[in-house]
């Protein structure tokens, strides 16, 4: 695959907070239209990697290329251009509690487009309908359930028809049915809009249901210890940690018995 077919490339990336390195030498490529899973145990640095990829915290060293732009060295205007083509669904939904769902979804449109209010309203209604929240325009986040808040967050993330959508623990706090529905929605968005999806999660059903490619962040070695399709990794686990993670804690000895 040629370099330009990758929408995100990370090379020798080190991430962490202040002077503390959490993960180092992270190198991976994410093809356009992929559903890419960043997985690993609790506290391994998955969310830190996501925060680094979205520019919320600076990388400690290495390179991140997004849409063939050096994201770390990019100027403010280039970063805004990348942000315009990216949407993020946060763990909590991160909807603005003082705004209705329609106002939440409209905010990126007001920021980045010159559409009339009438057109924005129509786009907002369509995006909310896409995530199954048609008719909920005037509801406040506090008036809907956790699953609906996540879907509304996804509608906001999709407002500008982004090329990349990041998901931070999309299944967290959801019941199994809502979680499955959200997985289906992710697959639909990927299939119909061709959006590249990057998901940070440790929910095994989601990983196997939606993941096309993945990386496994290993806390013990502080770097990526496995790459590939999650189902393939389960069949041929490259190491004990990956096998244990993907089988929900089954130990290597039990496997070999």
């Amino acid at each position: 695959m040629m370099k330009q077919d990758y929408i995100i490339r990370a090379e020798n990336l080190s991430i962490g907070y202040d002077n503390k390195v959490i993960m180092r030498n992270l190198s991976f490529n994410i093809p356009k239209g992929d559903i890419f899973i960043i997985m690993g145990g609790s506290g391994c640095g998955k969310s830190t990697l996501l925060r680094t990829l979205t520019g919320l915290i600076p990388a400690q060293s290495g390179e991140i290329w997004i849409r063939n732009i050096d994201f770390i060295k990019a100027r403010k205007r280039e970063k805004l251009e990348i942000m315009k083509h990216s949407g993020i669904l946060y763990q909590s939904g991160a909807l603005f509690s003082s705004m209705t769902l329609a106002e939440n979804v409209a905010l990126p449109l007001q920021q980045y487009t010159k559409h009339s209010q009438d057109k924005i309203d129509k786009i907002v209604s369509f995006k909310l309908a896409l995530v199954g929240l048609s008719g909920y325009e005037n509801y406040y986040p506090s008036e809907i359930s956790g699953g609906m808040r996540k879907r509304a967050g996804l509608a906001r993330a999709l407002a500008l028809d982004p090329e990349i959508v990041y998901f931070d623990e999309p299944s967290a706090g959801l019941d199994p049915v809502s979680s499955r529905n959200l997985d289906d929605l992710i697959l639909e968005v990927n299939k119909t809009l061709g959006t590249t999806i990057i998901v940070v999660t440790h929910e095994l059903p989601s990983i196997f249901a939606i993941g096309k490619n993945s990386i496994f962040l290993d806390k013990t070695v502080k770097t990526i210890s496995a790459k590939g399709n999650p189902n393939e990794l389960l069949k041929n686990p490259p190491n004990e940690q990956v096998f244990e993670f993907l089988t929900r804690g089954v130990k290597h000895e039990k496997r070999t018995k």
Partner: protein
Amino acid sequence: MVKFETKGEVVTITLEGVLNGNEHFDIAAEALSNKKIQILGKDITSWNTDFVVTLFNLLKHISKNNITYLHLPEGMEQLLHLAFQTPYKEEENLPPSLPFLEHIGDLGIRFCRSFKKGGIFILDSISSWGRQLLGKAVYRSKDFWMILSDCGPKSILIVSLISFMVGLILAFVGAIQLKTFGAQIYVASLVTIGMTRIMGAIMTGVIMAGRTGASYAATIGTMQVNEELDALQTMGISRTDFLVLPRMNALILSMPILILLSDFMGILGGCFVCVLFWDIPLAEYVKYAVNSFFIKNFLVGVFHGIVFGFIIALCGCYFGVNCGRNADSVGTATTNAVVYAIVWMIVMTGLLTALFQVLGI
């Protein structure tokens, strides 16, 4: 009953009879370290979890591989297996405390960093007015009107009540002294000048710091906890323009009106005392109050109010934006917002008073 028997590297612990946690072990935990432990329990008649707790605390530094169980009751053995499944994490040695001079240096560096951070925040907030004038600031006018309604009209009652009481106190305290010279009529002048020049502004500032400044910090701090600030940042929307600018504007606009109200209520409070307690006729009080009302004093009070509004909004927003990501941090941010706002208001009052004195205002 618990018996200990040491043979070379093996310590055998024999458990017998009723075990209820009141047993006394005649061996120290240190004596068992690096030994193989064998626990025998075929003669146990009854036991409870208190005993298991006591036994675990004796053996907790020993690796599970060095402990073997023989004929223990099933429940007890399972409990001990569970308790010993992960090795006991020994306390890490804390790094030695910094020498005195390094400690002072460290404090200095931290102070400089926080000063720089605060300075950048203030400059960014001031420049947001420029962006607003150029029409480049992204914020919702709806938010501004909601915030204005919250810090303006909704504060009227508490500002009125506190100011009335302050006027009342000033009148009481002043009259007691002035009465000794037979000059209690000048209470009207004292209250009028005191309230219009500074007391109205300070009291309104303190009330607004506790009410609105705390609310700003708590609201923005909760947004931080809910990742709403991250969402703003990744949408490329300036936090300062979106959150700080409408709050600053709302408070700076509200303060002069609230100060006007505070001045009036303070003078009314003084009037209440003079007429009811010191037998000063209402007309006399009004006459002296009007004669002591100088527009210059009133404008000085209003100017203080505008500065206080700026300080309260900045402190509330600064501590909110820099809040941690848990509930405890929101509490700390709220407390800091109020404390710092009041401290900086008093510091600014001192500086402005000295400045006006030099300028002869």
